[in-house]
């Protein structure tokens, strides 16, 4: 039964995703024989907090942390968390543990009908502060650093804008969209007056994962075919083939997008481009990027087709931090954080930036 999930994960149109998961459910939805063989999400972790489908994990260390300030990963709403813990030797989390950080991660899980009304306010004003509180309690520190990826970066920015006196000490954003005008294709499809967001939402009130996947594939329609052809060319190279299969599995393992959050993002980010103007609406408040004063690092990928440079390169200019930096590395949206290139390009840069900002004990 587990094998069914892995076969169909990349082809969810055969049977509905929710039905598949109902039939072959395991604790994290990734604990199948196929995933075991790929060695995905290998780093030992413990559950620190759970609320609805959301889980907060602490990755286990064998030695005490060298850098006292804990790192909290804020992941995207549309993908699984394990892109930062893909496999042994290919895991950003493993690397950060090895260079002495205490690492925590928020996995948003698979939202269901009961969570379809969770909008930006839920994530920014409730879930993230709750997780931060738990991290501080668990680590015994009073400040932390957030490392965020893609839409998780936008959530982290909104949090930082609305909580200038909060326990956030540093903010790292990886490929984080702030300028809707730069998301040219998504904007062209979704911002037309004759486009109804409701058509994306299914009976559960969420955007089903297959629609999210199709939208991502439409942004670069021939990429999947090209990577399958490349895979065929390297079929004798076990390590490379396994690496590619891991990434392909992750790409196919989409989660439903909470309907309310989707509506708010289409309106605020794509149609009104609020992050660049009066600030994104979070509940009744506006989160203006210029309210952010903490040290900020933004890392963008030169050939990112999901979050193109034009959609994220304004981030650093918009925040009012004295200590801010943007790094543009070669690669695409996924190869920015995972894979061989990320190991050479992003990871050392990240450590270089974090190290001097994580030394001081916060109390």
């Amino acid at each position, binding site marked *: 039964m587990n094998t069914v999930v892995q076969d169909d994960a990349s082809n969810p149109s055969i049977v*509905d995703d*929710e*039905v598949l*998961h*109902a*039939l072959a*459910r395991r*604790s994290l939805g990734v604990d199948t024989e196929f995933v075991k063989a790929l060695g995905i999400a290998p780093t030992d972790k*413990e*559950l*620190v*907090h*759970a*609320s*609805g*489908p959301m*889980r*907060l994990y602490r990755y286990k260390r064998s030695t005490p942390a060298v850098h006292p300030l804990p790192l909290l990963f804020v992941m995207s709403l549309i993908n699984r968390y394990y892109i930062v813990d893909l496999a042994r030797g290919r895991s950003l989390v493993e690397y950060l543990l090895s260079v002495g950080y205490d690492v925590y991660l928020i996995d948003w899980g*698979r939202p*269901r*009908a*009961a969570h379809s009304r969770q909008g930006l306010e839920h994530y920014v004003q409730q879930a993230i502060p709750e997780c931060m509180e*738990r991290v501080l*309690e*668990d680590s015994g520190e009073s400040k932390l650093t957030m490392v965020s990826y893609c839409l998780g970066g936008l959530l982290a920015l909104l949090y930082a804008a609305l909580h200038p006196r909060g326990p956030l000490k540093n903010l790292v954003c990886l490929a984080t969209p702030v300028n809707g005008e730069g998301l*040219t*294709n998504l904007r*062209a*499809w979704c911002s*037309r007056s*004759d*486009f*109804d967001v409701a*058509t*994306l939402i299914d*009976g*559960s009130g969420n955007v089903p994962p297959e629609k999210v996947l199709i939208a991502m594939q*439409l*942004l*670069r*329609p*021939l*990429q999947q*075919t*090209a990577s399958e*052809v*490349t895979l*065929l*060319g390297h079929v004798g190279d076990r390590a490379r083939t396994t690496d590619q299969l891991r990434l392909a599995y992750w790409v196919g393992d989409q989660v439903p997008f909470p309907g309310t959050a989707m509506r708010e993002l289409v309106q605020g980010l794509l149609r009104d481009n609020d992050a660049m103007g009066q600030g994104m609406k979070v509940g009744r408040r506006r989160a203006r990027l210029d309210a952010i004063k903490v040290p900020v690092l933004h890392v963008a990928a030169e*050939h990112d*087709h999901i979050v193109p440079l034009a959609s994220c390169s304004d981030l650093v200019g918009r925040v009012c931090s004295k200590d801010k930096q943007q790094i543009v590395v070669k690669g695409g949206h996924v190869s920015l954080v995972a894979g061989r290139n990320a190991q050479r390009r992003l990871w050392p840069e990240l450590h270089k930036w974090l190290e001097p900002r994580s030394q001081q004990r916060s109390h």
Partner: protein
Amino acid sequence: MDDYLALWSDLLTKPEATLSEQLVALTRDDVFAPLVGKQLLLAVHARELLGERISHALSAANLPTKTELAAINERLASLEDGVASVQAYVTRLEKRLSRADSVVAPMPKRPSAPSRTSRKKLTGGML
């Protein structure tokens, strides 16, 4: 053989980015972009219709429908969420207890026996 495969692979993969960009550019124009919305709407209606038909067929065959399976999924997932909350709470309690243990003052030591020399002195005095 390998050369042919490599040639074929190169032919397909090298211009991929450019070709993809050209295709996507087509989807942005005023003819295609409105179609995205219309196609989606059409797909939603088709899906609803198909869903209804399949549900009737499954019910007639006394088999669980998609809605029923989704309801089971919802209940199982809620149970999992509950178990995870308890698990996280237990972990937190364990940590608090272990921290409390480490800061609790050590048990008072049993009073050590008086040294032999003092005992001798005492004994000597009594005698």
